[in-house]
């Protein structure tokens, strides 16, 4: 069995890989949790779990989806253990909260606000597709949905964003 992350050399390679993937992992965690501190916790825990199991990884190419899966599970695990105070999205925006990240411009802030307001069922596949570049089949496998269900959610997610952003061209379902 190949074990590209075994041994001392493997440790270094895995650490380097985690560094490269960390922005994607953090952003995925952020959009799951909608909270920067929680996202950092999730990524830390996920990387630790991954570190302990790294020798099981057979190819470097499998690392990203594997790590994203761990992030997703760690996020779910965290929510099983802790209850978080729910903060209305409008409050985050109104106070220019760091929860929104530093928006480069008002346009970005406007779109970010609309994404934050999406229901989890729509936001998560959209993040996986647009930010992480997952295919429909990959999203379906990750979320345990049929291909058709994923496409429906993606379509509705964009429809909702168009509505919230006041864009023309929305299509009836």
């Amino acid at each position: 069995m190949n074990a590209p992350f075994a041994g001392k050399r493997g440790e270094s390679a895995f650490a380097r890989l985690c560094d490269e993937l960390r922005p994607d992992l953090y952003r995925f965690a952020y959009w799951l949790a909608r909270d920067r501190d929680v996202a950092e916790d999730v990524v830390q825990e996920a990387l630790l779990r991954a570190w302990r199991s790294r020798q099981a990884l057979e190819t470097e190419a499998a690392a990203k989806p594997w790590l994203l899966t761990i992030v997703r599970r760690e996020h779910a695990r965290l929510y099983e253990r802790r209850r978080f105070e729910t903060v209305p999205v409008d409050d985050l925006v109104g106070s220019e909260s760091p929860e929104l990240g530093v928006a480069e411009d008002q346009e970005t802030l406007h779109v970010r606000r609309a994404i934050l307001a999406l229901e989890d069922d729509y936001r998560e596949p959209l993040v996986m597709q647009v930010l992480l570049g997952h295919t429909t089949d990959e999203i379906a496998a990750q979320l345990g949905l049929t291909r058709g269900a994923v496409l429906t959610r993606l379509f509705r997610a964009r429809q909702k964003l168009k509505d919230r952003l006041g864009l023309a061209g929305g299509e009836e379902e």
Partner: protein
Amino acid sequence: MDCREFRREAGADPAHLGEEAAAHRDGCPACAEFLRQTLALDDRIRAALRVPVPKRGRAGRALPAVAPRRWLALAASIVSGVAIGSLLWVAGPRGSLAEDLVKHLAHEPGAMVATEVAASPTTVAEVLDRAGVRLRPGVGVVSYANTCPFRGDKVPHLVVQTATGPVTVMVLRHERVAHPVQFDEGGYAGTIVPVGPGSIAVIGHQPAADLDAIARQLSGAVEWIPGG
């Protein structure tokens, strides 16, 4: 494929049109425009999704060398019913700041001992002065004071004798924490509290509640010298 079917497909995955959809787009200017707008929307979504990524966690690097005990500590704190207010428990991973603090203590094992002998007031004043800090009277006997290299900075390392034993105090002007942080690392307990532009870390063998009380007292006694 009709326009409705095309828009269903393009609205779900505009970057990966099938052959039928691509053919429809080529023959239908309205749907081609719909696709163009949807792809433009995706660009805006992508830009919005790319939230800034913190440099390296709030207090650490991504892959610590030790296993985490943070959630065990959290669970223990809940089970014991101890009210910890807004304190956040960490022990390990995110706490590589904690890990570094404990490692630093290991370099000076003779410093944190119970004693009634105070360090030279001049030495204490010099150490604090180098870091642009003053310590108001009343915090207890300072038995050790040194300026130590820590994470690329020179920081005051003190040992303060308290009613419950000696504690190490590190004044960390350049280490910010968003919340008070407790840790349990390498046989030590500790608390890091935000103070002024940075934080102070209090480390010892006392129960966490005692360290919290000491940290609160010390944080009230630290005075940052403007421009220090």
